[in-house]
């Protein structure tokens, strides 16, 4: 901390800041100082910083308008280094910390002298609403180019380009009652529910709980309101059934009372989260709350008045003026003009005078305002101009004067001569809009309440609103409403509310507000200086009027045409004014025009909080087999198959390489393929889905779910099965083995395991509950090691007690015994076409068995291989992979697998009926065939389209596509599987594959079985 810097607008006393703690910060490169307890906005105002941004479209200088989430202008980019950049932070919601570095989001090269402002001034004329659509949509291809420059100039903040040093997480919470907002109604509600024993969460977006009570002029029990807040919070904090979440914004209200709360845990402490016990604490947290009932005590946003040049820095909301003075000890100017339609705003003038600054005048749109606040202002000697409003602000970088005139509300016109009052600040208030955003997220439509001149939230069952959030702005009534609504929520939960004594509030006399949104100007709206409605999106009253003239009558269309309420603003300040203007232009009432739907999120949420801990190496589960460590240690490259990590290939160090260079994938796969065809290879097949099926009806069930027959499969035998959906299309395949009469082990594809189990359960539970059969996943229980190749028997014989004689243990049989001393089930099935044993052991013993195989395997040339080699070897045999060679539109017959279809089974198994539909009987369906490229060096692209006539004019009729394609070391040629229209009747014919680069490959249609067509090798 350094020497004290002057803060010209900081009051000598008052506010809730800690004056003993000075905090240094920089804004747009300039050093400033504030205090603990400041927001960035209050500190900027204390330092007399008027311009905080440039506007989005017109590049006009903009200052701070509000004191909370509704701030449209003061969007800043935080961060002193690249890694900690945070865009789109509202300065009004960012607590000041020592060393804070902030920049304006918009304004290039700087906010004071903005290059874009010239463009804005010139372009503004050419940027009416609908500008983007009209100008940039044709030619569409140019939009990307325009957008880049507009965005650069306009600026919307930017993401960090370096990894975030912080961590984020999610916390799942459940409660009886979630209270959102800790102002008077929220506190009263939380206290009521808490004392009644309910599980309560109280969340509030501000640095401190208390809401309007923190800067209220009113006394509770004859004491400052903040005292009562302290007492209530102390009680709540002491209760086990209550969770208090300050600095926590309820950003999204989702189905069935699921609410996402964004808690900023360390954002007020520094750029990165502090270390606690050597561990970096969690920077921000998403609370995923499932609430029984929800009480919205979200308060209200003050509506600014819409008058000419109401965006010049120095135009503020009246309530914000009070907040800055009373809560932060900052008075954001010297000479104030207040323009109001209601009594409440008078407090800003009283606070201003009490802060020792001059109030030039209060301009009240009502002709004869009456009430205690008005009397108090009169008593202070403040000039009150009635029946009038500020119609225009003067000044460019800061307000220099206000033009005030008599207005006729009904006729919407200025009736008198305007008077110019010199001032540097204009505070305005057009009344209060309940914060209905969260209720709107539920899909409930708000309703217009003429008495409070605002929309009150529509409430679906289980949602309650209290206090200002439903238009009850009076303090005493708001407190009582909090209690009453909490009681209502508790009753809905079947609980009863305990009585809560409320603090005494002095009664006050108040007069009614008048309806004032856009203030008339001497000139018509379209020719008057700009009257801003939505400051963040630069939407003006003129823009809305133009939109309605161009025929946009629905408010949803007006919104999209003008961008009103877009973006991070979500219409907090501007929406009601915009609707009122649209209503005036369309000669309708506000409720007739209606309101737009607010969407989550209420304020921006960082990606960190959304992602939580689900990032980096925890982004998605990685499933490992029991042999994973061995694969890692032996240099495997891995392939993702579903969530599994499977060895893809095992590149070895090249024998001739001095520098330890490893084989390419092609080299490794060729070596692995040769090892299997010539000696013996080993594959970790543990990922295959395995389902234990038991019950007297297991066999019947298999017959219904598979296309082929199962009634005669004997114990000890295995059979390949195809599974279809009821539309006749192949959906999975695998080998099922008969373990005992009523006991089978089904294998599924790796990716299909969970889906197949659910598929079996679906049919059992919904259609055939009478069948006595159960399905249990045993995928993880067994580890599966496939040894395959001519030497497989010799290798296995060394370490097993199972009789491997070719007649004692035949192809498509299984035997139990010991392998490497471990009880094992060994299945003689083959996916390579070679002599194969699949060894299944309880997974905890897998590593021992695997290593023992290698101890004995050297002399046989035992070679580990991965999924790529597996794919090549199976494709050489024409074995399909469901999901690669099929795509949900392929029948068993399309695959040429009629041998696997039991047409005469008594039960009409799943998929059978569909195979006789006219569409599945077509002879020109795409059928599985082999493709042999005419040039053996060519490996066709998987997915490449096939045509019969390459000279056909474009678009050529497409005849099929390549599904699998590899180089075969055994054939020393490229080869492919493909689906071709009527392909099974086109053996020997030539097809063409036109590629994107203009080349056209030629290939011959052949049988899909390229190696050992008679299947002798697997039977040896």
């Amino acid at each position, binding site marked *: 901390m350094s020497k004290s810097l002057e803060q010209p607008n900081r009051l000598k006393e008052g506010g809730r800041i800690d004056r003993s703690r000075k905090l240094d910060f920089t804004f747009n490169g300039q050093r400033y100082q504030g205090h603990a307890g400041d927001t960035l906005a209050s500190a900027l105002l204390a330092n007399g910083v008027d311009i905080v941004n440039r506007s989005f479209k017109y590049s006009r200088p903009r200052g701070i308008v509000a004191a909370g989430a509704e701030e449209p202008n003061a969007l800043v980019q935080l961060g002193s280094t690249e890694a900690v950049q945070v865009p789109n932070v509202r300065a009004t919601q960012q607590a000041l910390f020592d060393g804070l570095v902030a920049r304006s989001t918009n304004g290039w090269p700087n906010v004071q002298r903005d290059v874009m402002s010239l463009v804005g001034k010139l372009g503004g004329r050419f940027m009416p609403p609908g500008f983007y659509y009209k100008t940039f949509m044709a030619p569409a291809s140019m939009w990307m180019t325009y957008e880049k420059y507009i965005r650069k100039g306009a600026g919307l903040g930017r993401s960090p380009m370096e990894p975030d040093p912080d961590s984020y997480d999610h916390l799942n919470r459940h409660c009886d009652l979630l209270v959102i907002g800790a102002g008077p109604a929220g506190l009263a509600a939380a206290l009521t529910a808490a004392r009644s024993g309910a599980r309560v969460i109280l969340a509030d977006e501000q640095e401190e709980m208390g809401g309007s009570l923190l800067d209220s002029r009113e006394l509770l029990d004859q004491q400052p309101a903040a005292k009562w807040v302290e007492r209530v919070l102390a009680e709540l904090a002491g209760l086990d059934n209550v969770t208090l979440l300050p600095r926590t914004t309820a950003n999204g209200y989702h189905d069935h009372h699921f609410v996402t709360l964004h808690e900023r845990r360390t954002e007020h402490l520094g750029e990165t989260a502090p270390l606690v016990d050597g561990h970096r604490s969690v920077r921000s947290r998403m609370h995923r709350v499932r609430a029984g009932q929800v009480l919205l005590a979200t308060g209200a946003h003050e509506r600014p008045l819409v008058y000419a040049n109401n965006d010049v820095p120095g135009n503020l909301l009246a309530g914000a003026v009070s907040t800055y003075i009373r809560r932060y000890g900052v008075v954001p100017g010297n000479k104030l003009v207040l323009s109001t339609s209601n009594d409440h705003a008078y407090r800003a003038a009283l606070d201003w005078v009490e802060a020792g600054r001059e109030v030039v005048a209060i301009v009240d749109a009502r002709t004869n305002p009456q009430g205690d606040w008005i009397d108090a202002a009169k008593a202070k000697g403040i000039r009150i101009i009635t029946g009038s409003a500020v119609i225009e602000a003067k000044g460019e970088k800061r307000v220099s004067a206000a033009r005030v005139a008599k207005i006729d509300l009904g006729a919407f016109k200025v009736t008198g001569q305007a008077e110019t009052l010199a001032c540097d600040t204009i505070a305005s208030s057009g009344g209060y809009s309940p914060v209905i955003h969260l209720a709107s997220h539920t899909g409930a439509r708000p309703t217009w309440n003429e008495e409070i001149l605002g929309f009150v939230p529509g409430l679906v069952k289980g949602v309650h609103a209290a206090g200002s959030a439903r238009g009850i702005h009076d303090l005493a009534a708001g407190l009582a409403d909090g209690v009453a609504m909490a009681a209502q929520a508790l009753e809905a939960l079947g609980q009863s509310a305990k009585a809560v004594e409320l603090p005494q509030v002095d009664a006050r006399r108040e007069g009614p507000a008048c309806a004032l949104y856009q203030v008339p100007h001497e000139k018509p709206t379209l020719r008057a200086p700009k009257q801003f409605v939505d400051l963040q999106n630069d939407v003006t009253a003129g823009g809305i009027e133009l939109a309605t003239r161009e025929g946009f009558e629905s408010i949803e269309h007006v919104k999209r045409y003008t961008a009103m309420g877009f973006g991070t603003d979500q219409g907090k300040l501007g929406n009601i004014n915009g609707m009122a203007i649209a209503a005036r232009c369309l000669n309708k009432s506000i409720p007739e025009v209606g309101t737009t739907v607010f969407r989550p999120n209420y304020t921006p949420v960082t990606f960190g909080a959304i992602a939580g801990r689900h990032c980096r190496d925890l982004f998605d589960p990685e499933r490992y087999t029991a042999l994973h460590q061995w694969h890692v240690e032996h240099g495997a490259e891995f392939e993702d198959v579903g969530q599994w990590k499977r060895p893809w290939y095992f590149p070895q160090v090249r024998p001739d390489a001095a520098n330890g260079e490893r084989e390419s994938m092609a080299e490794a796969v060729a070596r692995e393929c040769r090892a299997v065809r010539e000696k013996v290879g080993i594959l970790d097949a543990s990922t295959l889905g395995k389902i234990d099926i038991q019950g007297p009806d297991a066999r019947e069930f298999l017959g219904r779910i598979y296309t082929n027959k199962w009634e005669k499969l004997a114990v000890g035998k295995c059979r390949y099965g195809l599974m279809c959906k009821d539309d006749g299309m192949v959906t999975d395949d695998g080998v099922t083995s008969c373990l005992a009469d009523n006991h089978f082990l089904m294998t599924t594809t790796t990716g299909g395991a969970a889906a197949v189990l659910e598929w079996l359960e679906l049919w059992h539970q919904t259609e055939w509950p009478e069948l006595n059969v159960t399905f249990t996943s045993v995928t993880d229980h067994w580890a599966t090691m496939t040894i395959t190749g001519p030497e497989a028997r010799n290798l296995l014989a060394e370490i097993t007690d199972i009789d491997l004689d070719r007649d004692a243990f035949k192809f498509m049989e299984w035997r139990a015994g010991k392998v490497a001393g471990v009880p094992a089930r060994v299945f003689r099935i083959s996916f390579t076409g070679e002599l194969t044993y699949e060894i299944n052991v309880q997974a905890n013993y897998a590593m021992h068995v695997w290593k023992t195989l290698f101890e004995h395997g050297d002399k046989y040339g035992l070679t580990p291989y991965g999924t790529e080699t597996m794919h090549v070897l199976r494709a050489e045999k024409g074995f399909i992979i469901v999901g690669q060679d099929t795509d949900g539109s392929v029948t068993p017959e399309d695959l040429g697998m009629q041998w696997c279809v039991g047409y005469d089974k008594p039960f009409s198994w799943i998929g059978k009926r*569909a195979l006789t539909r006219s569409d599945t009987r077509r002879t020109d369906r795409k059928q599985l065939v082999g493709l042999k490229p005419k040039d053996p060096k060519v490996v066709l692209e998987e997915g490449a389209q096939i045509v019969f006539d390459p000279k056909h004019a474009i678009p050529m009729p497409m005849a099929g596509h390549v599904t699998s394609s590899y180089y075969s070391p055994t054939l020393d040629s490229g080869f492919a599987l493909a689906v071709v229209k009527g392909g099974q009747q086109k053996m020997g014919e030539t097809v063409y594959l036109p590629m994107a680069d203009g080349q056209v490959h030629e290939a011959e249609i052949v049988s899909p079985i390229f190696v050992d067509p008679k299947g002798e090798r697997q039977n040896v």
Partner: protein
Amino acid sequence: MFHIYCPYCEEHREEEEFRPKGQAHIVRPKDPEACSDEEWGDYLFFRDNPRGIHHELWVHAVGCRKFFNVTRHTVTYEILETYKMGEQPRITAESLASGETQGNVQVAGGGQQTVSGSNAAVEAVKGEQA
């Protein structure tokens, strides 16, 4: 994010545990071979898409792995009841239209999702449809 009462686990669980499986009460024809292509096509491919009451099949995938039925309002997303396989819904578009719920069928105990009981739920939904 729905909150769904599993009629087998007998408690509400988060939607993450469940998977929707489409329209409920689709019965596979007993004799598929007797169906015309059109009838079979109807069974395979054609589903209702009502605005209002919809009966859906769900599975408690991360849980008891049981399939069950949900009566859900497609506009409000309110779940009006959940019931086990083999049971019939108590709340249907027709019952709402006639102002009655079917009283004489088996209904999953405790399956009501609504706070204040089935009749209030029925009233609320009727209001929504009006």
